[in-house]
């Protein structure tokens, strides 16, 4: 493959940031945002599709990276890893990013219609799903994270689905309104319009994530009145509800804000803050406590916001906060990879047989375990070092374990991986299987993930030219095969020397993540040194990093500033749903400073959520 190799990046964080959550530091609003999907942006780290200029020599361009997020356009000046955590005067002078209108994610959509149907969730409770609901929305395929929904609108098939399901939901909402609301007594006659208005405000405030203005309520009541004679009261109310469910004010998350002392800079309103917080942490609309805080104007200070985030992250509803780990480590990617091991062949028992979903279930159980035990201390390092395994009868062999309940209904069991064989999610079977092919490892995929997502090197994949096939590798280890493959051509070596060490480190995990020490009858050599552009050693906190295998590599990376920053950058992208730009440097620095003392994920998210990047917009 041919890759775009750009400036190597150092993990440095320096400079003081003086911005506070209450002010915007006199920053200017941004100019028109770029709409070019090919414009340069961000770290160039995580996307599937590179779009910038290419170089076959591996020479650095020195101007930052192209977007690696696969189509999410930048909203400001690109920033490199070297600068991302520097809060300096240049960053403070950057224009404020513009107002955004980003579509709800599929899970946000599902949780919000569930709340509209069943009522706003009480404090610290997850939203129960609507039975049988088929989600009409899909995540944008071009985005690294499902939360990067700002790049899309609504497609035809999605609208078709929402139109149909909204009609059914509206009817269900009408049926529910017959118990315990004004509709039980006031659905006809003179009180019809008043009751419709009350119900529109009640349901609309959940869907729109803010109280409706009086003229908005009037608009939906008018709609009901227009069809009252033809459809009757229930049908008329259903029309009003369906209109709410289809309104762009629900399907999109508007970030408009209120004017500040700085011309053209707007601060998110308390209800917009509540919406952002609840979706970021819980993927659901504001619960009763958060809604009350917004209503009382108690979301204006950083401390108030941090208090709410801390509360939300401590409860069972924090699904989105947990989901960041799942998406960061691509633990569901294996769903898209056909696996020979999935097949139940004749003569085999389907009971306790490997399948990909079992691997994912174990990985997600581990995410929950670490979230519960380490969300306020040593969070990132634990992600790279834990030797906890969640295995069941279908996956225990992958881990080299035994003794789980031998039935398919049993949930994964918490166990300890054999000594020296696992270190965190980098060696998890779900990730290893996702970064492999049907029945063979893919060290290039693994190397790409390490470079783009773990080390945040400035590398973006582009369409390759003339890459020869590996050929017959039946007698070769993967290391031998890759060496033979890359050796004849110097231009091949440029990329392979960068990708292969990080990828081959994981050769001890086969195509579904089973630990092994031999390949083709030969001992596996997983040792190496991380490399950067131009055949140089990769700078990891000022020194090169050599390792004996993936466990050694992951354990060493766990305590490095480079990886810590890279995880935080990805967290920023996930929680803000966009790529970082120069304006965000102070916000990132604040969040990093909050994380560092104890390694608290909660403090990181809480500080990020109270930062200027989270709260300020321009128009």
């Amino acid at each position, binding site marked *: 493959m041919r890759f775009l190799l750009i400036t190597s990046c150092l993990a440095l964080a320096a400079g003081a940031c003086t911005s506070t959550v209450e002010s915007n530091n006199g920053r200017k609003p941004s100019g028109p945002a770029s709409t070019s999907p090919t414009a340069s942006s961000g770290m160039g780290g995580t996307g599937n599709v590179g779009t910038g200029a290419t170089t076959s020599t591996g020479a650095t361009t020195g101007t930052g990276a192209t977007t690696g997020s696969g189509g999410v356009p930048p909203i400001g000046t690109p920033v490199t890893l070297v600068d991302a955590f520097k809060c300096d005067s240049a960053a403070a002078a950057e224009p404020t990013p513009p107002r955004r*209108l980003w579509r709800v994610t599929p899970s946000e959509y599902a949780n919000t219609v569930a709340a509209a149907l069943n009522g706003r969730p009480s404090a610290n409770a997850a939203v129960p799903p609507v039975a049988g609901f088929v989600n009409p929305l899909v995540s944008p395929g071009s985005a690294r994270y499902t939360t990067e929904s700002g790049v899309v*609108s609504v497609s035809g098939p999605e609208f078709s689905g929402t139109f149909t399901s909204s009609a059914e939901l509206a009817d269900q909402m009408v049926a529910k309104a017959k118990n315990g609301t004004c509709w039980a007594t006031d659905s006809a006659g003179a009180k019809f319009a008043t009751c419709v208005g009350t119900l529109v405000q009640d349901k609309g405030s959940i869907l729109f994530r803010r109280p409706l203005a009086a003229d908005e309520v009037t608009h939906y009541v008018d709609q009901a009145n227009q069809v009252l004679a033809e459809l009757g009261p229930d049908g008329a109310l259903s029309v009003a509800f369906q209109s709410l469910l289809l309104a*762009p004010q629900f399907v999109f998350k508007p970030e408009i804000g209120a004017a500040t002392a700085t011309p053209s800079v707007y601060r998110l309103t308390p209800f917009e803050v509540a919406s952002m917080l609840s979706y970021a942490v819980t993927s659901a609309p504001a619960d009763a406590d958060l809604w009350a805080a917004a209503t009382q104007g108690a979301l204006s200070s950083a401390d108030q916001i941090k208090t709410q985030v801390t509360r939300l992250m401590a409860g069972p509803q924090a699904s989105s906060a947990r989901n960041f780990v799942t998406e960061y480590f691509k633990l569901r990617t294996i769903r898209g990879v056909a696996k020979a091991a999935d097949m139940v062949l004749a003569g085999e028992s389907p009971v306790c047989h490997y399948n990909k979903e079992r691997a994912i279930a174990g990985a997600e159980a581990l995410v929950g375990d670490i979230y519960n035990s380490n969300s306020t201390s040593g969070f990132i390092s634990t992600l790279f070092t834990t030797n906890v395994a969640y295995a069941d009868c279908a996956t225990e062999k992958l881990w080299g374990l035994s003794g789980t309940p031998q039935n398919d209904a049993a949930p994964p069991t918490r166990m300890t991986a054999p000594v020296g064989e696992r270190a965190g999610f980098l060696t998890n079977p779900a990730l290893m299987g996702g970064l492999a092919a049907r029945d063979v490892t893919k060290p290039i995929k693994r190397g790409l993930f390490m470079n783009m997502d773990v080390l945040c090197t400035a590398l973006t994949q582009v369409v390759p030219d003339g890459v020869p096939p590996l050929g017959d590798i039946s007698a070769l280890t993967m290391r031998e095969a890759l060496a033979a493959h890359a050796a004849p051509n110097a231009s091949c070596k440029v990329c392979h020397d960068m990708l292969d060490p990080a990828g081959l480190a994981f050769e001890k995990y086969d195509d579904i993540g089973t630990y092994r020490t031999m390949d083709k009858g030969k001992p596996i050599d997983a040792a190496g040194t991380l490399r950067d552009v131009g055949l140089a050693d990769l700078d990891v906190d000022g020194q090169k990093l050599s390792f004996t295998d993936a466990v050694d590599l992951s354990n060493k990376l766990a305590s490095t500033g480079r990886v810590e920053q890279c995880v935080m950058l990805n967290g920023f992208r996930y929680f803000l749903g966009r790529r970082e730009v120069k304006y965000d440097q102070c916000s990132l620095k604040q969040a990093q400073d909050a994380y560092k003392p104890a390694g608290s994920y909660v403090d990181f998210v809480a500080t990020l959520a109270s930062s200027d990047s989270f709260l300020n917009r321009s128009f």
Partner: protein
Amino acid sequence: MNSFSRRSVSFSRRSFVEKLGLGMGAALMAPLARNLIREAQGQTSDRKIAMFWFACNGINPYWVFTPKEFAEPLNGVNQQEPSDVSNSSLIESATYTLPEAFKPLEASYRNNLLMMEGFKNYPRKGEDVGHGAGCMALTCVPSTDLVNQSQPGGIGFDQLLANSIGASAPRKSVLIAISSKIDQVMKNHMFAAGANQLIPAFQSPADLFKDLFPNMPAPVMMGTTPSSRNRVIFDGLRYDIARLDKQFAAPEKDKLATYLGIVEEYEKRLQSASNLSCNGGTSPTLTQTGDPVDVMVALNSLASIAVVCGLTNVMGVDIGCRDSHDFGPNLQSILRASVKGKDGTSLADVGHQDAPVNGPVITDTYAWISGMVAKTLDSLKAIPQGNGTVFDSTVAMITSDNGETHHSIQARWPLVLVGGKVGGLKLDGRYLRYPADPRHSLADVYLSMAQGFGVPAGDFAKGSDGGGANYGNPNNGEVGGAPIGPLPQLV
């Protein structure tokens, strides 16, 4: 049954076709169809119809394709370049025995088809990634995402046609797929509006029904006066969009503009459908999790009715894309359960085509597909148009979706075209085997069809390199190398 599947009728595999009308035969269908065709908006002039049926990778017809009169051993093996076109000149004959795999077309369409083979259709050398590679068969260019093959590299030929011959119909195209993988990653891989623009295919008959016939027997939104209800809702939506639009600048405004466009397109479709008496009957409860054969037959029936009714002029069917022969075991009810793959133990290995033992299975698969195609064509033949029928301006294509080498031997890629003489297309019963030099690609077939349909091909199949330095290099060029041009034997 949950509240989102209100219709209580479920259909067995075979009866569903009858319930929807396609199985009733031309005589019963004709009066209805005549009525429908007049009513379909924008369909008053002569229609041109294109339909594509693809079976998954590994389930490739070449083992069973070549007529016995022209039989020649297939020499290719997995993981190798195309090697099985040994004829130095074109083989062309009107006299041959139609292979069993396509026998369902024999009675009515023997003189309206072309058996064609000898084409290239393979991805860039070195970029074989197994099951995902072949979903380029409509785009003829590689995926832009060479790691996961998750994004198309260009527009699919079906959509190129849809932009033209589908523009006047309520639906530009109706795309259906069946796959044992129902997650988002797996279901959206065959149809593309352009580079990185996947078009999801319908996998659930229930969902497709609701989409095609939203005004039919009251899937909820229809009250006693559904048009009033919908008018109020759509007018309200326009108000909501305009209200929000004032508060944003580009590019956020563009999202609202897109939303408005989608809303109004859907509104137009509802209005079109409300004028049709083309009633799909009662909505099925069958979803993509049902028996795969039931699901495929139901999807095919609904999509075919959409064509027959004039709701669309382009239909795409993908059986197992990104799923491959893994899908095989689920189709054992049509594939002979007694036939095992090359490993002698299961159907799972049918897709690795380095042994002809899989022939009977593949024959049955394509016979099943050919049967569906024949039924749809029968219906179109019953609809008068000008001095003939709609069939005269219809072309259907049957082939496999995949060209990667792990599941295909890349040997003289085969396909069947069947239909009328659209724009002079020479569908007259011949067998054609194209030679090794010049080696034509699948793209040349599409260029020929485009010419026949009167649709400019533009940059179709030019690929992500835009015809750059690598374009056309058989070792590292686009899928199948550079298109040469329309085939004189076809157009």
